[in-house]
């Protein structure tokens, strides 16, 4: 009894003393990179003793919390707009920086037992399906690009996310780029006014809709499709090649855009150039403050980011994320160097 009391007292004293207390950084944001972030934070914690507490509340929530200054860092799948950045800078008295960490892709999954894997889609057809202009699987436009495939006389059931999400943001960003009708009628964002289809909550909701209904088509993250063995379509990219999503084709999309990356690293890489590039790819970003009030935390943040750019990248593939290409890592490191540390 006495012993436990003694230990408890020691612990209390330890917690109260700032020098001994462990450094703890709080963050919140996107759900999509949650798996790799928690792996990173775990590995980094055992390595350095610095603790990161990350809550995957969604990109919108991450941006809000960074703007309000209630967290030390945020995370988002869609970059902040100029207005949002200005708002955050005014409220926090410092710039918010976007640091890409890993990449993901959105794949188009479908339920067509007679076709199996390897359905091919062009941007025009994809937009047509999600606009409700193409309603049958044996439509001439689909048959034309899928010679030799047994396309059934089935109605197409469109499935989309009903909850606001970065996945939807990337997918609609792509459709906005490739289809004029889409950009005029629908536009892009984490939630949009879908012309047709059923909404499922979360990736599992969309996958459930697609799995259960023959003739259904939907979109999910690449990682989710791979983990659950869903079939997904090859997409025709800007260079005219049909490309399936995988780590290489996603990284290729970033590599192709690396030359034209803006200095603040806020960029959409959907419909990227490059023969091997998969067209519905995207970065996910950490949001950090250029100047942090707590210098110790700033130092830890910078060290962690540098680690994430090098050693951290090697964890990506096992967790179904595409690592950043070398050129992009260089740009990121330059950006990380601009964070003020004393």
């Amino acid at each position: 009894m006495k012993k436990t009391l003694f230990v408890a007292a020691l612990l209390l004293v330890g917690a109260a003393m700032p020098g001994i207390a462990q450094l703890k950084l709080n963050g919140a944001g996107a759900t999509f990179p949650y798996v790799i972030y928690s792996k990173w934070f775990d590995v980094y914690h055992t390595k350095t003793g610095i603790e990161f507490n990350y809550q995957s509340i969604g990109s919108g929530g991450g941006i809000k919390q960074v703007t309000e200054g209630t967290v030390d860092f945020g995370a988002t799948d869609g970059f902040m707009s100029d207005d949002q950045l200005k708002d955050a800078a005014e409220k926090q008295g410092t710039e918010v920086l976007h640091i890409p960490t890993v990449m993901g892709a959105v794949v188009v999954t479908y339920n067509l037992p007679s076709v199996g894997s390897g359905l091919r889609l062009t941007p025009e057809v994809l937009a047509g399906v999600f606009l409700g202009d193409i309603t049958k699987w044996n439509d001439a436009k689909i048959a034309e690009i899928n010679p030799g495939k047994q396309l059934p006389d089935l109605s197409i059931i469109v499935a989309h996310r009903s909850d606001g999400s970065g996945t939807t943001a990337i997918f609609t960003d792509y459709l906005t780029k490739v289809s004029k009708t889409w950009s005029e009628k629908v536009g892009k964002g984490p939630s949009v006014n879908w012309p047709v289809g059923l909404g499922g909550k979360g990736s599992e909701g969309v996958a459930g809709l697609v799995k259960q209904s023959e003739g259904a088509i939907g979109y999910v993250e690449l990682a989710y499709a791979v983990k659950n063995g869903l079939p997904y379509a090859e997409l025709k990219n800007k260079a005219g090649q049909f490309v399936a999503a995988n780590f290489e084709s996603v990284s290729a999309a970033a590599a192709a855009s690396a030359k034209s990356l803006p200095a603040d690293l806020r960029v959409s890489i959907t419909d990227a150039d490059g023969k091997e590039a998969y067209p519905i790819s995207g970065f996910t970003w950490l949001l950090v403050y250029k100047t942090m009030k707590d210098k110790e935390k700033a130092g830890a943040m910078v060290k962690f980011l540098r680690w994430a750019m090098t050693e951290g990248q090697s964890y990506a593939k096992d967790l179904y994320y595409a690592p950043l290409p070398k050129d992009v890592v260089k740009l990121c490191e330059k950006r990380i160097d601009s964070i003020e540390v004393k």
Partner: protein
Amino acid sequence: MAQNVVAQTYGAPAGDGGSNPPVASSVRSRAKHRQWNVGDFVFKHLTMLFAVGVLSLVFLMGYEMYKGSSLSIAQFGWRFLATSVWDPVRDEYGALPLIFGTVLSSLLALVIALPLGLGVAVFLSELAPRWLERPLSFLVELLAAIPSIVYGLWGIFVLVPWLRLHAEPWLGSHLGFLPFFKGAPYGFGMLAAGLILSVMVLPIIASISRDVMRSIPDLLREAALGLGATRWETTKVVLAASKSGILGATLLGLGRAVGETMAVTMVIGNRADISASLFSPGYSMASVIANEFAEATTSMYTSALIEVALVLFVVTILLNALARLIVWSVTRRYAST
């Protein structure tokens, strides 16, 4: 087991007649004449503070929601309740399809659950032998204790496939001439939401109706039987006497259906459309908030979602107030007999 507590509160003077008003008031007046006591003083004011706290919480919530939605109220005004475009990209919000979806799915649930629940209540209170009544009541109440996410999963994996493959095609081919059963059978949609809600509402209606019918004095039954009424005719008398109590139970069930979020979101199809067909996907107020609030980035978007919450809040309060009023009127009428 929330509805059980509710039932006890509402159906207060159950058959035992232990606490009729004259006794209660005489106890209260006696307490008044006792000496002033610190403990009593603290006790009284502390409990009052709690009661006032609950009340102010409701007002505060209403006020906060009103304040939070001021942007959207200023922008759209009453149009918010009457237009049907929900477009976050263009910041254009109309809640009519959401209100429609909430109301239709809830009403559908009531249409299915009311006769069933009433049947259960009649059996439990009038006909069932005692050894059967206890476990059966328990099981009915257990239905209410199942988390809604479990209902939702059951909906996705069992109800929806059954609807799509069997029920909806059958309805479409036999009753397809009605506007309610037109269109492609997706499985997901208004019908699935209504059915799932009916299962969730059923225990509320059944157990409160049972309690209300039990509170009808046996005198009434004996009189009916004495006049030569059959079992069915006696039950009719009891049903007539507990009419408003049953109405109250129904409204409480409706309140539950209106506010239900997770199970509905999982099966309703989440599409802000108004359609007469029960096969077509719909949307509800609670679902849209659950779906979109986390990623609502613009302030107008957030504001519109909070206004949806405000509308839902008002609807729920009105329904509950109505239910309370009705149940109160019936219990008061029979408390003195």
